[in-house]
């Protein structure tokens, strides 16, 4: 059946007026085959493998942008968790050197961010894991593009509180060592981290993946918001239908571009991540979608229900559109990267407590928010523990990307610009959890893990 004028117009209008794009194409690269007892050779092999494949990604993505007239906004790389490949080179200076090789490979290939400088420590830490965490303040300050992650829990393993307790002090040190604490924006702590997530800063190439895999993240919220705005009076069921149909269409574009890109690069196609991801562009905001539902400001009562409705519809529409859904697949509500979220914080509509409740119904978690630089490390650990407990108990991915900015107090705005946006400093509950967090040890795996 021929495509009608209306259908052509709908797609063309999305691109021209509503920020329709492919948000990210992320090439997962296995680095295990680069390990060498000679550290210099090891670094060279890592550099060469990343640079070679990343260049191919950038070149092939550009061809498809032109063919389909749709921007592919980010071309990125994720690698095998670095602590894993460093087990036999466990020396503090080597972690920084490896990070610098990875950083240089990304820069030389024209890749904005490269993920995977992290460790899977949901049950415990190896010597390499501990050393990697210790190296993070320096790595995040001295590299530009390297993104770091830790997975500190899962619904099968429980939550590694000893690992959580390392993070607060590490973040405070990172904040001191990088300008405006920007190093902290490149670190995410997870539970139930997916191994095929294409979105930074938490992307890594899981150990269960093939040598190379191409994963795709779909378009942003601008298209969804405009469709909701055209359907002001429909009830919840009808609204859900509208959202499903729109997500279906934008996911189909991701599926087409992802599969064709993988084929052209001669690498296996991994997944489409159907997360709605905000950008700093005006209108490309998840908060504004929620507000177009009829809530005055995100964070107001009704917001959790609205995000839940949105999430569920996005998943239903997206699942129908792609053969392989994966990654985080939900909706991101970062503060600094979403103009509507910033506005809600500044208007007093959205605080940390409500943000936490929103994350219980959406991926991924407390993302890109600032807190006063004098927040005690154990309070940062407790904020992380709260968020991650939601993930472990509810069998979902949750994460935290928090920036304790030295010298800043609640109400301030720290300007990063670019992809990272502007970070409002949010008020933190002043009452202490020190004695609770000091207990340490492991939060046991929840009863829902007993499924066999």
């Amino acid at each position, binding site marked *: *059946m*021929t*495509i*009608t*004028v*209306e*259908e*052509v*117009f*709908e*797609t*063309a*209008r999305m*691109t*021209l007026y509503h920020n329709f794009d492919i948000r990210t194409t992320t090439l997962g690269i296995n680095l295990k085959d680069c390990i060498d007892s000679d550290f210099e050779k090891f670094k060279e092999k890592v550099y060469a493998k990343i640079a070679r494949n990343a260049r191919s990604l950038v070149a092939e993505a550009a061809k498809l942008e*032109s*063919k*389909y*007239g*749709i921007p592919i906004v980010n071309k990125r790389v994720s690698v095998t968790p670095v602590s894993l490949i460093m087990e036999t080179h466990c020396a503090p200076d080597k972690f920084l050197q490896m990070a610098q090789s990875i950083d240089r490979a990304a820069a030389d290939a024209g890749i904005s961010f490269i993920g995977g400088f992290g460790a899977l420590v949901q049950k415990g830490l190896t010597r390499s894991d501990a050393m990697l965490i210790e190296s993070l303040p320096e790595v995040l300050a001295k590299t530009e593009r390297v993104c770091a992650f830790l997975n500190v829990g899962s619904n099968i393993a429980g939550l590694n509180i000893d690992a959580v307790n390392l993070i607060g002090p590490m973040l405070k040190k990172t904040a001191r060592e990088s300008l405006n604490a920007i190093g902290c924006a490149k670190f995410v702590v997870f539970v139930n981290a997916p191994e095929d997530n294409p979105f930074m800063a938490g992307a890594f190439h899981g150990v269960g993946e093939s040598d190379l895999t191409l994963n795709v993240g779909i378009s942003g919220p601008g298209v969804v918001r405009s469709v909701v705005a055209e359907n002001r009076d429909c009830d919840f069921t009808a609204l859900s239908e509208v959202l499903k149909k729109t997500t279906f*269409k*934008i996911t*189909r*574009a991701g*599926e*087409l571009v992802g599969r*064709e890109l993988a084929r052209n690069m001669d690498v296996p196609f991994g997944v489409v991540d159907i997360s709605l991801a905000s950008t700093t562009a005006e209108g490309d905001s998840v908060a504004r979608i929620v507000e177009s539902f009829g809530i005055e400001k995100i964070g107001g009562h009704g917001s959790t229900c609205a995000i839940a409705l949105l999430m569920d519809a996005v998943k239903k529409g997206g699942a*129908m559109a792609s053969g392989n859904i994966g990654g985080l697949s939900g909706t991101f509500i970062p503060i600094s990267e979403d103009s509507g979220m910033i506005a809600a914080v500044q208007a007093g509509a959205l605080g940390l407590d409500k943000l936490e409740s929103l994350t219980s119904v959406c991926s991924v978690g407390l993302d890109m928010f600032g807190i006063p630089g004098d927040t005690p490390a154990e309070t940062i650990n407790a904020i992380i523990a709260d968020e991650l407990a939601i993930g472990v108990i509810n069998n979902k991915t949750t994460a935290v990307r928090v920036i304790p900015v030295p010298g800043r107090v609640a109400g301030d705005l720290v300007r990063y610009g670019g992809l990272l946006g502007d970070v409002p400093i949010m008020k933190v509950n002043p009452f202490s959890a020190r004695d609770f967090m000091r207990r340490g040890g492991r939060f046991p795996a929840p009863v829902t893990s007993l499924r066999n």
Partner: protein
Amino acid sequence: MKKELSFITVIGLDKKGIVAKIANLLYLNDINIEDINQKIMESYFVMTMLVDMGNSKVSIDEIRAGLEKIGGELGIKIQIQHENIFTMMHRV
């Protein structure tokens, strides 16, 4: 030669010479027009052209640049996109 179908979308105010200028650019580059439709939608004048680039002398990038130049001269938006994207998005 295998067909390589793309849609050209024109959005803006209706003006004299839109079809003539685009058709001339396509003719000069051996691109065949398979179908043309137009409609007024949400106060936009919208015209779509289905074109076959199978014998085209130039790449889609060069045609896009030519179309954007015409768009600039006439104050309209012109977009070219491979047919696959429409089939994927609008057909189950």
